[in-house]
């Protein structure tokens, strides 16, 4: 939907924002309420209908229900950071047609190699081949999706927006985690734990990214921020690897890991994820538009101060 916004100041864009945004907003609100109600209650009665919600966990009890907010926020945050990484690479690569072509080939090669490798190379315990293969394809697919939908200058806006919203979702993960861990593990935080530490480091990296964006001069921000985003994203596998050999207390991941889950719980989880993704999309969309408008205003100000004759200035 973003490409419609690219034609700056067009009537279509305003119309779309005016019409589609409230409708999508209401739909998302309904979805969020529905997802929340089935996450909180084993059985839901609405309008004479009886819906099956998430069953109560046997050992943990109702505390486990925070899982339906914790995990979808984590997935949404990771997806947003992933988009930020892709957009940052594109901002750097597309400045020069030669590097652009080269990076495109490399991205296709990465997708093919990761997909093929997931079938032929034995993976460490706890990683499913299908999950690794899908990640490889997702990376390539996302890269070309962003490449067709966004112009070169807009990839910077996209990177800024996804980092901001991603930090908020990552913060939700970091807050809900300890709330769950306190009654279940008996401690708020397990230092040195693989998933906890990698999420915290991810959050720190993107906070420093936002700080850099705020503190650099506007002309340089996109280049510096894109370079930092690429380095930061490269850091994540290292954190993950370095803590791989530590014990983890965190439950096994539901998707692509060794964990198992009740089908009804999975349904509720996916519903919540859908609701969270829609919410994140809407927030990103409005933030994206705001950022674009802000840049137009800045540009107009700069242009006017250039055109203004200093002798006639007030």
């Amino acid at each position, binding site marked *: 939907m973003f490409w419609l916004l690219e034609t700056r100041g067009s009537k279509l864009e305003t119309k779309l924002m005016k019409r589609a945004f409230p409708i999508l907003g209401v739909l998302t609100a309904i979805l969020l309420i529905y997802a929340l109600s089935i996450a909180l209650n084993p059985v839901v009665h609405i309008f004479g209908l009886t819906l099956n919600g998430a069953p109560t966990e046997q050992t943990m009890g109702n505390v486990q229900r925070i899982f339906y907010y914790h995990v979808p926020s984590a997935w949404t945050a990771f997806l947003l950071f992933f988009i930020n990484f892709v957009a940052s690479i594109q901002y*750097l690569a597309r400045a020069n047609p030669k590097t652009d072509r080269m990076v495109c080939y490399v991205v296709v090669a990465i997708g093919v190699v990761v997909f093929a490798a997931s079938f032929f190379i034995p993976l460490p315990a706890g990683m499913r081949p299908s999950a690794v293969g899908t990640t490889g394809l997702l990376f390539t697919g996302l890269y070309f999706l962003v490449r067709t939908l966004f112009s070169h200058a807009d990839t910077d806006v996209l990177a800024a927006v996804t980092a901001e919203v991603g930090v908020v979702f990552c913060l939700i993960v970091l807050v809900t985690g300890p709330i769950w861990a306190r009654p279940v593990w008996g401690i708020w935080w397990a230092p040195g734990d693989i998933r906890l530490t990698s999420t915290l*480091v991810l959050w*720190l*990296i993107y*906070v*420093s990214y936002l*700080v*850099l964006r705020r*503190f*650099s*001069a506007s*002309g*340089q921000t996109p*280049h*510096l921020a*894109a*370079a*930092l985003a*690429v*380095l*930061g994203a*490269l*850091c994540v596998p*290292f*954190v993950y*690897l*370095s*803590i791989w*050999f530590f014990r983890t207390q965190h439950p096994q991941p539901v998707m692509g890991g060794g964990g198992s889950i009740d089908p009804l719980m999975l349904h509720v989880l996916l519903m919540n994820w859908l609701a969270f993704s829609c919410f994140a999309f809407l927030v990103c969309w409005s933030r994206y538009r705001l950022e674009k408008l802000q840049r137009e205003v800045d540009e107009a100000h700069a242009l006017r101060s250039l055109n203004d004759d200093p002798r006639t200035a007030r």
Partner: protein
Amino acid sequence: MNQTLDSSRLATGSQANAQQTGANLGHPQIVRGITRATLRKDLRLEWRSKDAINSMLFFSLLVVVVFSFSFDPSAEESRQIAGGLVWVAFLFAAVVALNQTWARELRNQVLDAYRVSPAPPNSLFIAKVLGNFIFVSVLEALMTPLFIMFYRLRALGPAWPLLLVAAFGTWALVVNGTFFAAMSIRTRSREIMLPLLLFPISIPALLAMVQATTSILNGEGARFWIVLLVTYDVVFTTTCLLLFETVLNAE
């Protein structure tokens, strides 16, 4: 100040030479020549002023003394905490030196002169990294005896792998540090920006260094951590070299 201008003058000079001889500026010999000239200039400046090394030394000395007062560990305890202590002290001290590397080039617009000269940006970057590597290594060589004295350190196994950890660990800190220092001089509040950018990204390297040091002191193998550190060095050195031109010329 004349010496500060050396490298940019040499860069322009080498371009003139290159045009005369029709040689390519990306030629390894020219890259090496500019790197060597910049490195020599940095070392000479440091030798005469001793700004970076003195502040680093005093800073890490303070860290050693303050920590030894606040913990007062036994030999057994200090073996457990020394890895973390040593590397955190060196990281903080390195930031002091790293902040000065590029600030030095801002005087008399040397950095701008370098940017307009056709000299390859990466040779400047490599020279700066090598310079900082030398400074931080000298600091480590001088401070390690003090650490051993204050914390009564004695390795339970062979101690020579610590040299590998020190070399690769210092390289990891210095490559990222030089890169982010170049980034942070282009922002407002320069001195504060460097640690904000450097620390989150260095966490894996720092973790590997600390774990490797602790396991070596306790007489255990540290092969995994050293391999991880080398991989980190290779990946981040390559990426920094690829991205440095963007950061230097960001406008």
